[in-house]
């Protein structure tokens, strides 16, 4: 009996320690979550500004006209780093998928959710191992797709907890370069969209080529200000020149937004997972304590019986 008592006690102690760790991790994730949410707010201002200028330019039908021109200019064989290439639609030979996962585990169903839904999306679009190029942000996704023989053209690990724009820029740049050098002919971004701290939804959108459709759809709940549409702006030096500046900036901001959103969801998911782990630890401890007390009591009862038995024998 004594040995089992000790064992139960040891298990209680170790579960308590695990609970303490998961509790601390939950606090950390919650802190990160509120930090990144503050950061996202300031990013939203920037995103909505770019969006409003782009929609304004789109309304003046610059995009259609320029998409045609870009086709011609790229036939000249110039492979310059230009914004207009992003508008140009090509017959799709290969599809690119940017899949944002986390680097580490302990985030509940976050990673498996993204990967599963991305695979579903690929199946829907008729993409197989041969005509798909994966761009992975986060180690879990990179490993997963590599193991299944997908072509992982670019992987980025170690996105910081609150990603800054400069970090993300490198990713965006290589994405656009790969698009221009025809590594893929369309690009989808797949990530978990943060709904609230208990829920996140899978989101996927087509990012390249930039079309009128993804300008109009209001993807991340950014409200598209209509105030600009009615105003007549002077363009300096010209509408096209501005478009050339704004389009790459728009693409960059889209990817940055996706990564921020995914990171927010990751923190939320990790905080929820850690909370349920802590709760489970508490449950286990209380049931173990019950077992412990029961065992202790029965040990005492046995002892008393023995003592009374012994005194009875002496008399």
């Amino acid at each position, binding site marked *: 009996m004594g040995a089992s008592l000790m064992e139960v006690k040891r298990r209680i102690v170790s579960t308590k320690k695990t609970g303490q760790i998961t509790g601390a991790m939950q606090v950390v994730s919650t802190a990160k979550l509120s930090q990144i949410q503050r950061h996202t707010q300031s990013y939203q201002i920037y995103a909505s500004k770019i969006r409003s200028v782009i929609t304004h330019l789109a309304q003046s039908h610059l995009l259609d006209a320029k998409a045609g021109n870009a086709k011609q200019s790229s036939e000249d064989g110039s492979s310059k780093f230009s914004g207009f290439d992003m508008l140009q639609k090509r017959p799709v030979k290969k599809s690119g998928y940017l899949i944002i996962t986390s680097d580490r585990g302990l985030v509940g169903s976050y990673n498996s959710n993204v990967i599963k839904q991305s695979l579903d999306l690929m199946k829907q679009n008729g993409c197989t191992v041969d005509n798909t190029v994966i761009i992975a942000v986060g180690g879990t996704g990179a490993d997963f797709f590599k193991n299944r023989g997908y072509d992982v053209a670019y992987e980025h690990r170690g996105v910081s907890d609150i990603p800054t*724009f400069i970090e993300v820029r490198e990713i965006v740049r290589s994405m656009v370069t790969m698009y221009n050098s025809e590594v893929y002919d369309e690009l989808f971004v797949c990530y978990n969209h943060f709904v609230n701290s208990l829920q996140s939804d899978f989101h996927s959108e087509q990012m390249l080529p930039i079309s009128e459709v993804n300008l109009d759809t209001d993807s991340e709940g950014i409200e598209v200000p209509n105030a600009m549409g009615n105003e007549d*702006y002077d363009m*300096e030096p010209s509408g096209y020149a501005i478009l050339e*500046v704004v389009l790459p900036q728009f693409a960059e901001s889209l990817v940055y937004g996706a990564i921020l959103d995914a990171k927010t969801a990751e923190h939320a998911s990790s905080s929820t997972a850690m909370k349920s782990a802590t709760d489970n630890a508490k449950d286990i401890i209380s049931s173990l304590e019950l077992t412990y007390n029961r065992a202790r009591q029965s040990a005492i009862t046995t002892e008393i019986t023995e003592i009374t038995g012994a005194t009875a024998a002496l008399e």
Partner: protein
Amino acid sequence: MAEDSVLTVSIVTPDGSVYENEARMLIVKTPSGEMGILPNHIPVIASLDIDAVRIKVSDNKEDEIAVSGGFVEFSKNVATIVANAAECQADIDENRAQAAKARAEQMISKAKETNNTNELKRSEIALRRAINRIKISKH
């Protein structure tokens, strides 16, 4: 024009708002030259060069901010500069900028050797950014 008319200047980057103030005049550098915006200017959108944005707060006070490209949008006396990166004079780390400059110069010579035009263009932009920062921090 009213005597006390001012315009509001705000500079936003993906990492948040960098600058927000009322000003008498805003001077930006576009690819086709410098452009001054006074209060009650007509609505305008202009793309920006990698250069300083000067904001006249009062007659004898002027703020200078380094921006790396982007564009300015002005309407109803509110000017919004949307840029990838922007730094106020006080925030610039001159040593870092010098290091970035040296790095960019190195990259340029390397890119020239290997005839990598894409890389060359990128490093040239990086160099311009570094020089811009150094220039502003010295004022």
